């Protein structure tokens, strides 16, 4: 109980600092949030997802964010599109609605609605379609990134060639 509350407070602090900091520091706070979330997930009894969350959330995403920030080299912090009071009102409205709808229902939740199959059976038998869709999404993502980054290098080569032509 105590460690769960302590970790939750840590996760909330990391999330607040990630939203308030500049992009590179925010990426590091996001990694901290991922690490704390992974510990919480482990404590809740889901070690497989905890390991994946730690390696992907705290590792891969942080490296990708640092890479994108170094390529973009833009640390400016423009003001918000919508007025701050309206943003706060919308956030409080959404949070209040979720608290009002979810928290009172939790004591009524009954354990063991249906038998829980082992993780291997769940993922390979019961959710095989999900796995196939995940593979397709990964392939589509890789192709998308390659085409997007390939376009940048092609344009850079074209610009270099035109500059040489002018000389």
């Amino acid at each position, binding site marked *: 109980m105590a460690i769960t509350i302590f970790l*939750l407070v840590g996760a909330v602090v990391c999330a607040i600092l990630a939203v308030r900091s500049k992009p590179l520091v925010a990426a590091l706070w996001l990694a901290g949030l991922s690490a704390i979330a992974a510990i919480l997930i482990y404590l809740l009894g*889901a070690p497989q997802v905890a390991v994946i969350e730690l390696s992907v959330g705290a590792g891969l995403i942080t490296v990708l964010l640092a890479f994108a920030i170094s390529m973009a080299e833009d640390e400016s912090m423009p003001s918000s599109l919508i007025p701050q009071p309206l943003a706060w009102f919308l956030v409080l409205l959404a949070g209040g609605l979720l608290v009002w709808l979810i928290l009172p229902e939790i004591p009524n939740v009954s*354990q063991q609605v249906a038998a829980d199959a082992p993780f291997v059976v769940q*993922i390979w038998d019961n959710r095989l379609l999900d796995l196939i869709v*995940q593979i397709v999404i990964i392939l589509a993502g890789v192709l998308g990134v390659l085409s997007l980054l390939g376009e940048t290098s092609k344009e850079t080569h074209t610009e270099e060639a035109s500059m040489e032509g002018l000389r």
Partner: protein
Amino acid sequence: MSVTQALFAGIIFILAIGLYGLLASRHLIKVVISLQIMVKSAILALIAAGQAVGQINLAQSVALTVIVVDTIAAVLALALIVQIKHHTGGLDAAELNRLKH
């Protein structure tokens, strides 16, 4: 308040922080970070709900799908951001209004 209720209250608070970042920031990388915060809270909510109803393995398999899709979305968004920086010279979401004219 039980542990599960405290857990869900914290998860909703993290979701609200992510939503605020999404609404209040125009910097595109900060938008991606805010989305990541919201997805983290969604993953935590899935696992907490699975534990509450005694279906933790089902929750794990669904959370795994969410992590994969979220990672691909983040990778694509960051590649798009690099392209936007290349074309517009900035990362301000308010500058992305060429289709308006």
